């Protein structure tokens, strides 16, 4: 038996690698995070905005970057590569080569002076060569670690930087070196690389200056890009009038071998078109594509808005064959099909929506790790084990196993973290240190000394609000002793700056004027804690979501409002008091709601981490919707795998299964929930520390296409059942499949994601069983993203006929002479198609579970408009709720495939483990507090308290009996209903006292 090691190596420091590292480090494991680049951040760091919320990528990522960079259990190995791996799961010996940065990471302050003096100009990879950088450089402004490195390929060794560096951090004679580390498991997250556009010479990339890659455009759109967010034509620096996007360049292309779909480019182009239009008044944007793959949560709504609100033109069914250039004007020409017509149009800029490929070093990874790759050199995985490589103990997440977007990568990352730690869970907390903050400074005798940090947020705020003017104004406010502006206040170097400034200026309160406290307050609160201040001596002014973004056309008024908001924050901050922490012990168990594959996987995951799992299912058997899925696209026997899973769940001692059970009530909060179940006629109480919501979904029963009237019309799952159980009649000659039944329409605007692929699966199976049968698929867009595309191609090659329809002209199904007759109009041929199918399969929508509404009330967790659950953050917190201690996975989140449900289930386990692994939890300290001197015991507050946290008590004072109330701090959640009820101002919520709120009101009303 090998000695297990409580450490994990994560390969790749992009968003997936960072998420995996953070989860592992927060769960009590030592993490080595390796990245070949000198700074972590990966591809996401190059993005300007993210779909479908248009969130600023750097803004949402920066807190993760900072957290990763300064986590006491994460060791960054940048500029490093994996050389050899020996050993077995639980105990690997890994050899790593660290290239010479030529800079002492512990000494460099990232001041950037050296880069100013370096005489060598090199094309800047971060900006895809659109600008230059120096030979000594930091990859991007917010980079972590915030230290420079020397690019040995270009350094001329002049020594100027060494002379300039005051920190004496430059070490010219630093050599590359090898190091060995021991870890229990490995997570690989090397990301992806882009298709080489030179392989499609017909588009003129690299020849015609105004042909750009989508990444080049992204950099142009970014505030930190070459033209500070402006889109300009490379040929003449002019502002373009129009811009065209060509989709699928390097994807879905047999000729070049990349037959798969890159999954993200459709949405990426829509986003770029929207942002480019925002940045360029009058710009027209036109997207040419084959199918619009807006398959994710809220994607279709985004797509509709792009068309309807932003006026972006979409022309479907196009694979553009070539781009021509007018050599004088450098304008570009493209010919495309529009309905039945052929048109040629002139564009100022053409953007190639570039596909993704496996990372360039994929072969080395294969060789060092011994993992299997698929035909496209991506990591090979199985749908029932989507996070495992072929090598035990080595896990995969992110774009390396298939092209995918950020939320899917993040979910996989958390999931891989859970898998990686499950078999070393006995070693938890053995190699880690507990995070120590410096002792808290006593400020009780000090006057308020406030520091104000005002954020430009690139151009998100700075593009509208005059930030320097706000800083100058802040300096004039009472109690403000220091104010400054930052390009990104959330970047790691600014965090160090804040800590230093607290000390240097003896600050005892801090305000940050930037974005929403709902996402960023925790980061800054930890920062001031590092500066020796109680975390509650912090206040935020939201000058982005509540100002620059909503008043973007009124810069002057927005600036005035920003000043007002800062004044309000300062007024409140001056009255803030330190709040002592409240700690509670954690119930080391999880309640999992829903016994489908997501719920079962989550239960097993929780058990593998060493905690108890209570699995509650309302039906009398486990399995959920998967009970109706018989075979997978890739051929696996789904029922067999599901039954295996059920057996494992039933035989695991730590998993307690309650079928046919109903949840009557859930009370409590993170660390200590109490659930009342109705099970076998009895009420049962369960105490647990976290909740995982896995309520699944259901198949729509449609009320169109004669469903329910004619037995030959069936749903997708019913058809699958017929295929498996011989329900299909002998002599079936013709099958018609209709897509988007109940999805992507007014009352249900979302895409159900799985139905296109399920249709392909069924079509292939039908062809396999009855090669002579005609199979017709009537669709709007075939959304077979990722490697699923290969099966779509196979189906087309095997003779399945695909006919596109438009929503204004759906196929019509009638019965004629006892025969089904389906009529549709082919938009390209502009002619009617009539078929007489023996069976019609409807690819119907996936609906949210009807119980979601009840649960939403019990747990205070929000739903989307479509009644799926709404996670804490669409991009970076896909399985968390804003309510602490509650997580979600599977179809409860949105429709998705088995492999995606399993990844999310593991992700929810990982997120839950970060809590369950702790011995005690520091609670939100925003609680009620009584002023005995003011309270006269009227008890008005006792009844309205939603948590029965207040009791009336008597005490002796000066020989007389007095009354007051007492607050139970663990029961109190700080809602403040008591404070607003009290006629005597005798009870208040810390951090939201009447005085503090009043100060804000008065500051708001002050006319300046």
């Amino acid at each position, binding site marked *: 038996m090998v000695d297990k090691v409580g450490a994990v190596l994560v390969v790749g420091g992009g968003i997936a690698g960072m998420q995996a590292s953070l989860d592992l480090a927060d769960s009590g494991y030592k993490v080595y995070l390796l990245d070949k680049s000198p700074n972590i951040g990966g591809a996401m760091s190059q993005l300007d905005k993210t779909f479908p*919320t*248009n*969130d600023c990528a750097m803004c949402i990522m920066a807190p993760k970057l900072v957290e990763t960079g300064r986590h006491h259990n994460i060791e960054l190995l940048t500029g490093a590569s994996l050389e050899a791996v020996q050993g077995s799961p639980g105990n690997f010996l890994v050899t790593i080569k660290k290239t010479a940065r030529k800079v002492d990471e512990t000494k460099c302050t990232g001041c950037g002076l050296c880069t100013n003096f370096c005489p060598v100009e090199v094309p800047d990879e971060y900006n895809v060569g659109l600008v230059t950088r120096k030979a000594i450089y930091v990859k991007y402004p917010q980079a972590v670690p915030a230290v420079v490195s020397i690019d040995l390929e270009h350094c001329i060794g002049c020594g100027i930087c060494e002379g300039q560096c005051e920190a004496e951090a430059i070490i010219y004679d630093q050599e590359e070196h090898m190091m060995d580390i021991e870890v229990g498991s490995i997570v690989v997250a090397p990301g992806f690389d882009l298709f080489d556009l030179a392989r499609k010479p017909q588009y003129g990339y690299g020849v015609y200056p105004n042909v750009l890659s989508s990444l080049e455009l992204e950099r142009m759109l970014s505030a930190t890009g070459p033209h500070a967010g402006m889109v300009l034509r490379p040929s003449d620096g002019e502002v373009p009038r129009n811009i065209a996007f060509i989709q699928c360049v390097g994807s879905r292309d047999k000729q070049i071998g990349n037959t798969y779909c890159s999954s993200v480019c459709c949405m990426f182009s829509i986003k770029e078109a929207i942002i480019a239009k*925002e940045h360029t008044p009058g710009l027209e944007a036109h997207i040419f594509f084959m199918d619009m793959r807006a398959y994710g949560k809220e994607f279709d709504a985004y797509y509709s808005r792009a068309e309807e609100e932003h006026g972006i033109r979409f022309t479907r069914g196009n694979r553009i064959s070539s781009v021509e250039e007018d050599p004088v004007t450098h304008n570009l020409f493209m010919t495309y099909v529009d309905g039945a017509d052929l048109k040629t149009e002139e564009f100022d800029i053409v953007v190639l929506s570039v596909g993704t490929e496996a990372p360039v070093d994929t072969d080395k990874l294969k060789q060092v790790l011994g993992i299997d790759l698929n035909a496209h050199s991506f990591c090979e995985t199985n749908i029932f084990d989507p996070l495992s490589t072929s090598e035990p103990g080595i896990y995969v997440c992110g774009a390396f196993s298939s092209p995918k977007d950020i939320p899917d990568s993040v979910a996989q990352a958390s999931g891989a973290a859970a898998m990686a730690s499950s078999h070393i869970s006995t070693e938890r907390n053995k190699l880690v240190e507990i995070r120590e903050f410096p002792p808290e400074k006593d400020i009780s005798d000090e006057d308020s000394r406030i520091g104000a940090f005002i954020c430009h947020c690139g151009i998100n705020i700075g593009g509208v609000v005059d930030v320097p003017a706000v800083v100058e104004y802040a300096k004039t406010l009472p109690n403000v002793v220091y104010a400054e502006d930052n390009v990104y206040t959330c970047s790691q170097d600014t965090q160090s700056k804040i800590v230093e400034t607290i000390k240097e200026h003896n600050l005892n309160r801090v305000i940050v004027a930037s974005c*929403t*406290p*709902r996402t960023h307050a925790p980061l800054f609160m930890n920062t001031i804690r590092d500066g020796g201040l109680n975390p509650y001596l912090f206040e935020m002014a*939201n000058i*982005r*979501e*509540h*100002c620059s*973004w*909503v*008043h*973007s*056309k*009124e810069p002057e*008024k*927005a600036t*005035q*409002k920003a000043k*007002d*908001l800062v004044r*309000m924050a300062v007024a409140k901050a001056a009255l803030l008091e330190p709040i002592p922490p409240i700690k509670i012990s954690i119930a080391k168990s999880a309640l999992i709601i829903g016994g489908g594959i997501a719920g079962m996987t989550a239960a097993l995951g929780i058990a593998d981490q060493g905690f108890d799992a209570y699995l509650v299912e309302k039906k009398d058997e486990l399995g959920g919707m998967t009970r109706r899925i018989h075979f997978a696209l890739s051929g696996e026997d789904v029922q067999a795998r599901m039954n295996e899973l059920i057996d494992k769940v039933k035989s695991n001692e730590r998993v307690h299964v309650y079928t046919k059970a109903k949840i009557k009530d859930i009370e409590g909060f993170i660390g200590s929930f109490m659930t009342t179940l109705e099970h076998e006629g009895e009420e049962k109480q369960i105490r647990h520390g976290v909740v995982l919501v896995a309520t699944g979904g259901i198949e729509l029963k449609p009320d169109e296409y004669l469903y329910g009237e004619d037995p030959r019309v069936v749903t997708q799952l019913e058809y699958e059942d017929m295929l498996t159980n011989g329900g299909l009649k002998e002599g079936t000659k013709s099958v018609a499949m209709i897509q988007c039944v109940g999805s992507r329409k007014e009352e249900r605007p979302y895409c159900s994601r799985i139905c296109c692929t399920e249709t392909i699966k069924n079509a292939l199976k039908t062809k396999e069983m009855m090669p002579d049968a005609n199979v017709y698929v009537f669709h709007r867009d075939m959304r077979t993203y990722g490697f699923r595309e290969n099966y779509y191609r196979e189906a087309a090659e095997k003779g399945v006929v695909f006919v596109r329809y438009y929503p204004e002209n759906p196929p019509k199904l009638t019965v004629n002479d006892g025969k089904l007759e389906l009529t549709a109009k082919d938009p390209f041929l502009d002619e009617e198609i009539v078929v007489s199918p023996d069976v019609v399969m409807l690819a119907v929508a996936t609906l949210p579970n009807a119980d979601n509404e009840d649960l*939403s*009330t019990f747990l*205070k967790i*929000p*739903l*989307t*408009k479509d009644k799926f659950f*709404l996670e804490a953050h669409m991009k970076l917190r896909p399985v968390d709720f*804003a*309510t602490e201690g509650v997580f979600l996975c599977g179809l409860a989140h949105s429709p998705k495939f088995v492999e995606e449900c399993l990844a999310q289930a593991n992700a929810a386990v990982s997120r839950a483990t970060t809590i369950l692994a702790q011995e005690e939890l520091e609670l939100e300290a*925003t609680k009620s507090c009584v002023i005995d001197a003011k309270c006269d015991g009227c008890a008005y507050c006792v009844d*309205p308290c*939603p*948590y029965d946290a207040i009791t009336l008590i008597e005490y002796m004072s000066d020989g007389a009996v007095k009354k007051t109330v007492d607050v139970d701090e663990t029961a109190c*959640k*700080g*809602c*403040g*209903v008591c*404070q*607003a*009820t*009290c006629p005597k101002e005798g009870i208040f*919520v810390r951090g*939201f006292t*009447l005085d503090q*709120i*009043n100060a*804000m*009101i*008065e500051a*708001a*009303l002050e*006319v300046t």
Partner: protein
Amino acid sequence: MEEEEFEPLIIAFCCNWCSYAGADLAGVSRFQYPPNIRVIRTMCSGMVHPNLVMDALTKGADGIIICGCHIGDCHYLEGNVVTEKRAEAIELMLEDFGLEPERFRLEWVSASEGDKFARVMNEMVETIKALGPSPYKMG
């Protein structure tokens, strides 16, 4: 001299869990509304003492709006039910203070209703502009 257009000052109390998130979503979605609103974040709409509302109005705020989660959705179970009752009391007080009822408004805005937040704020600004400055406004 041309008179400057009246720019009202409106204070919006938003609960942290739904309405503040709704206001954030309005921002993320770039829904525009006039810059006359000053949001004050409270944990729950039920945290807003009626005195705060009346004080603000008598100190010169032109309008006050309290935004909370929809009934049934309050993060603290029934905080907003209490808010609803208090709103009735506030309405009565407005009368006593000689203020138009439109100067106070209670709205439920969920975390996914960025559009509603922007719409409500647009409406509120318009309403108050039509009413003119608060009679308590100094100067």
